[in-house]
């Protein structure tokens, strides 16, 4: 199982990515997907995402590898957009395929939780007023990641 990992400015197509993961296969019994979208909180006009090229791909590949060790995955796609995104635009896609639903659903949640805290992306918010601010990391995201680590 080789994960498909892409960092790109362009939008992604969930139907095309699903077809790509299942094409020609008869062993996939469950697909789970997570799509993160840009919300228009507090009059947000746009979100600008930057990342650390090179390290981003390494970090996501490591997270994908850990997911593949914990769950019997048959396919895995992670696409994260960068650049300027307006409210309503999709930001991130996590797509997991397995023989059964539990592995697909759990691994999908694991990967998006880890992406929030373990991959080098940063979001800057631009508001209609012209103001801008960097999004701050949330303790809730660390807690979501921590739940995947045995106590």
């Amino acid at each position, binding site marked *: 199982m080789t994960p498909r990992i892409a960092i790109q400015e362009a939008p992604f197509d969930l139907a095309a990515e699903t077809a790509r993961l299942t094409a020609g296969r008869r062993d996939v019994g469950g697909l789970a997907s997570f799509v*993160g979208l840009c919300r228009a909180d507090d009059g947000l006009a746009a979100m600008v*995402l*930057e*990342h*650390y090229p*090179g*390290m981003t791909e*390494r970090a996501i590949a490591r997270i994908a590898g850990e997911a593949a060790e914990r769950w019997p995955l048959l396919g895995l796609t992670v696409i*994260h957009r960068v650049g300027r995104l307006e409210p309503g635009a999709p*930001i*991130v896609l996590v797509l997991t395929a397995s023989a059964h639903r539990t592995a697909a659903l759990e691994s999908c949640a694991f990967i*998006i939780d880890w*992406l*929030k*805290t*373990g*991959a*080098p*992306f*940063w*979001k*800057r918010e631009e508001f209609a007023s012209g103001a801008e601010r*960097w*999004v*701050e*990391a949330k303790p809730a*995201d660390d807690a979501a990641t921590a739940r995947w680590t045995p106590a």
Partner: protein
Amino acid sequence: MRVLYFAWVRQRVGVAEEEVSPPPEVRDVAGLIDWLAGRSPGHAEAFANRPAIRAAVNQDFAGPGHPVAAGDEIAFFPPVTGG
């Protein structure tokens, strides 16, 4: 060594990356931060709040005690906010 800055750390320092040659007593990430902070007012502002700074050495997350050496690629940035 090559030092990269991201997000508000980059904005405060004023450049995205720079090549630096710190003195031999700079041996770890914390020591490098102390040394970089003295390079300009922008560097000082970027590194004023040390607990808010995260680092990577050769593209892996690294804590303050992680060693640094000539030839390394070292990055400084705020806590990540992707996903």
